[in-house]
């Protein structure tokens, strides 16, 4: 269970998160929506431990463990996955090598046996096929020359293989056509289980048609100003953020 209490964070002296309270129980999917600049991506980065952000107040624990005290790679090994809004290119590093190295690094940290090349390829090929990705995906360099949609699908491929316990998806749906959107949603749905939870950051209802959230939260100016069930997303889609923001102010 992810528990965030009164979390405040700044970057370059600018306060972005101003006291976030959020509880994501195991097995649930929570959507976070909100206007541009409200702090959605920052929340993802702070949870994942990106350099440059300073936590000025509050706590974030996963299963009772303080994740803010951990290095990014320790958080990853503990089961936290961040699907990037803008996946990063790694020239000269092929997907297979990157994925296997990442999987084995996490396994080592957790004291689990490492995968050999054959075991890895079997898993990875099955997942690429399931995500309708081309056969050469694993041989290509990480995100280099990928289209926007391919990059997002590559994030989902990594998530499927790394099997996180909690995933933060930062606008993974943006830039996707309907077919790709469905593949991404199916990917997350496939992971749905009592041992998996997700925080889905999105602007659009259409992802939530395929990926029905347990809770929807509206983030504005660094705070969660409204929470509700899946119907809240429909309200937002119909009325926009302005009314809710005005109401909260």
């Amino acid at each position, binding site marked *: 269970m992810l528990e965030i209490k009164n979390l405040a964070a700044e970057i370059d002296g600018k306060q972005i998160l101003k006291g976030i309270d959020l509880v994501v129980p195991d097995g649930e999917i929570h959507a976070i929506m909100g206007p541009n600049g409200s702090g959605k991506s920052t929340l993802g980065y702070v949870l*994942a*431990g*990106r*350099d*440059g952000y300073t936590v000025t107040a509050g706590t974030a624990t996963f299963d009772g463990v303080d994740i803010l005290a951990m*290095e*990014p*790679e320790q*958080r*990853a*090994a503990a089961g936290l*996955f*961040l699907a*990037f809004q803008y*996946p*990063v*290119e*790694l*020239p*000269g*590093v092929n997907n297979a*090598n*990157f994925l296997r*190295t*990442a*999987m084995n*690094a*996490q396994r080592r*940290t957790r004291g689990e046996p490492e995968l050999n090349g054959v075991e890895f390829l079997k898993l990875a090929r099955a997942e690429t096929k399931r995500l309708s990705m081309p056969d050469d995906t694993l041989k290509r*360099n990480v995100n280099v020359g990928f289209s926007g949609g391919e990059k997002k699908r590559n994030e989902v491929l*990594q998530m499927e293989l*790394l099997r996180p316990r909690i995933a933060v998806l930062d606008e993974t749906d943006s830039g996707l056509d309907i077919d790709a959107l469905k593949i991404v949603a199916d990917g997350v749905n496939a992971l749905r289980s009592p041992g998996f939870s997700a925080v889905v950051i999105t602007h659009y209802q259409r992802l939530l048609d395929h990926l029905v959230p347990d809770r929807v939260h509206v983030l504005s100016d660094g705070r969660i100003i409204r929470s509700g069930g899946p119907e809240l997303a429909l309200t937002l889609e119909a009325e926009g953020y302005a009314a809710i923001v005005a109401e909260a102010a």
Partner: protein
Amino acid sequence: MAAVEETIDAVAAVTGSTYKWGFTTDIEMDIAPKGLNEDIIRLISARKEEPEWMLEYRLAAYAGWLKMEEPNWAMLKIAPIDYQDVHYYAAPKKPRPKSLADVDPALLEMYEKLGIPLREREVLAGVVGSDEEEGHRPPVAIDAVLDSVSVATTFRKNLAEVGVIFCPISDAIREHPDLVRQYLGSVVPKQDNYFAALNSAVFTDGSFVFIPKGVRCPMQLSTYFRINTQNTGQFERTLIIAEEGAQVSYLEGCTAPQRDENQLHAAVVELVAMADARIKYSTVQNWYPGDEDGLGGIYNFVTKRGDCRGARSKISWTQMETGSAITWKYPSCILRGDDSVGEFYSVAVTNHKQQADTGTKMIHIGRNTTSTIVSKGISAGQSNNTYRGLVKVRPQAAGARNFTQCDSLLIGNDCGAHTVPYIESRNPTARLEHEATTSKIDEDQLFYCRQRGLSQEDAVGMIVNGFCKDVLKELPMEFAVEATKLLAVSLEGSVG
């Protein structure tokens, strides 16, 4: 298999924060007094039981050297070197071993520490590739050099059966004097430059390779260099000759023990490729780079030059330079034969206070000659890394082509990367391309890798290996693994 793993283990053992290969082996040495003069040169020549012409060659080089000045055009800060404060000859005291069984056990132990699979069994075992795609790999022959004398040479007999000569150059001077006399200094003249002249005067060992006409060398040849005696400058001399249609792949790798005083190293490598011959020369250079303040590292002044003497010949240099306090090195190709091909693939890594000024020269003389230069420089810490290259097209070199790719990667804010390309074309039909990039290691890339579970250092290693991939793939498989690990090791502590 076993030997490869040993090598990997040996490299892995270095993944501590310090240079763990800084041990000294306790072997009785026979050392000439410090200093350089004609008597010392006569002593070296006498100890090596050399013919008179060789002594004359040395003395002529020495006479030239005395009139020369140290080059100062490189982007290097070099403390004054006292050439009289160096031992120019050191050799193990025991007589030359007749077989591996006679080799000093302490020496074999040292090779084991280095992960050098000296014993034939291990060498053979070590090169049967475990990689499914590469399949069975040909064996490797190693001419191991301890300080100035080649202590043991494997596979000489097997090679001799196909007419390949692979031996210490001092043996070649005695046993194949006509060949040596014909080719020595024919690519790098004895007064070519300051350091080459010094080497020509005092070189004590190195390798000699002769591949006769039409023979494809049945195994990769390899020499591991290692400086072992305090204050012994090492002056290696390598001469490789590939006759018409011959082919050879040669691997050179070095490690050096930790020292407080700078150690002078001035090597000369000459390659001669006759018509349709191919020579591939690969180096992993891991001399002791000095401590974090740059103290005690090796000074590495190297003259490497290949002569594509015949039509359609090809010389390919691949180097991975991670060590030395100072690197001054420009492996070059003289493309004399029509349709000859020169290649230079280089990764140069500098960290802490290391300085590297390295690159290549491609001299196009023959018609339709082609050269390719791919240089990847990585600077970290407070180091300085310079690519210096010359592409020269002589008037008669119609149809010459060159492609140069020169990329620099900076890690941190205190290091420097410099690119100094010289291009001289005197033939209007030449086509020359130069591409260069400079980038900093990207925070986004590091965070991305760490978010997926890689440690900071593994992330740096992965990004840097990716940056160097175009060069690493040119290395023979046996070196590629070591090179990949070395890259990561060399950059330890450079981020964060």
